[in-house]
């Protein structure tokens, strides 16, 4: 892994300018934050609560009456109920959004070939959903996920009503977003997807909300085992 600057890439996070003290690496043909300078200097694994920008990681979506059956036929785990998700050992995450829409994502360190999957999952009754270049993917980690979210979101996201494997589509800090509860590197995290146009605003708003719990930006190294 060699360190690079995001400007060298056509594809980079929508909010790369916000990652001033960051060390970037190349992931899937794009610049991704590995860690933040002061954190690596301190030799710590990361702050108490971290916010990581995974926007550049590959993902695609499909929807339509045949989408669910196609996923089952392809031998991919399919979330059984609307608004739930599954995560495979290879690092493939499948979100089921509502009844007929699915997003397939590769989490950091995943060993799945999403491009091949995307080509395989085509048939009548399946329509592509573009969720890569129009959505930011932020991951919040740490012990106070529900407490932080309670400051910006009206839905109860405490463990007893929002277990690992659940997702909600709602409004957070007044913008629409998808909040997913799952595991990464053995930790409970919330993945948050929101319109790329408001990503910079949301990044600042979430960090502001995390402030009282010692929250700070963290790189993807904190999410890999």
């Amino acid at each position, binding site marked *: 892994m060699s360190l690079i600057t995001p400007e060298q890439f056509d594809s980079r996070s929508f909010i790369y300018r916000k990652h001033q003290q960051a060390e970037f690496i190349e992931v899937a043909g794009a610049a991704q934050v590995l860690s933040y300078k002061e954190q690596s200097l301190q030799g710590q694994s990361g702050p108490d609560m971290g916010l990581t920008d995974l926007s550049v990681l590959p993902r695609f979506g499909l929807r339509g009456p045949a989408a669910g059956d196609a996923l089952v036929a392809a031998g991919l785990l399919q979330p059984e109920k*609307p*608004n739930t998700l599954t995560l495979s050992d290879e690092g493939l995450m499948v979100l089921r*959004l*509502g*009844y007929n829409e699915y997003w397939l994502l590769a989490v950091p360190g995943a060993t799945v070939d999403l491009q091949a999957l995307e080509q395989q999952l085509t048939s009548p009754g399946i329509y592509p959903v573009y969720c890569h270049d129009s959505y930011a993917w932020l991951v919040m980690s740490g012990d106070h996920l529900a407490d932080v979210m309670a400051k910006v979101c*009206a*839905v109860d996201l405490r463990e007893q009503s929002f277990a690992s494997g659940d997702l*909600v*589509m*709602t*409004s957070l800090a007044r913008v*629409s*977003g*998808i909040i997913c509860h799952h595991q990464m590197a053995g930790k409970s995290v919330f993945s948050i997807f929101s319109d790329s146009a408001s990503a910079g605003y949301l990044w600042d708003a979430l960090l502001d909300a995390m402030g009282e719990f010692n929250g700070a930006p963290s790189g993807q190294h904190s999410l890999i085992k």
Partner: protein
Amino acid sequence: MKIINCPLNGPRNSSEFVHGGEVRQMPDPNNCTDKEWADYVFYSDNQIGVVTEWWLHAPSGYWFIAERHTGSDEILRTYDPSEIYTSRVEFKAKVEPSASEEVTV
């Protein structure tokens, strides 16, 4: 805040929803009169009572149907549109004679 019970996402603040107008039968645009079309597009009963309406849960892009009282603002029932619409609504454009056929230069 007012809470609306979304059939897909459960109870949510009303600020997450967008009103989509009354559920009505669309006249056949190719064969109805101008008056019928105008009535469909512009006119409304607009009385005090229970109306059946489209609502959108914006964060999930999910459309559903609600029965709501326009006086008390009470929502009596919300349900998935599949209760009413069992097949896809298709729009067929009228086949107009193409311009090139008419032009005789």
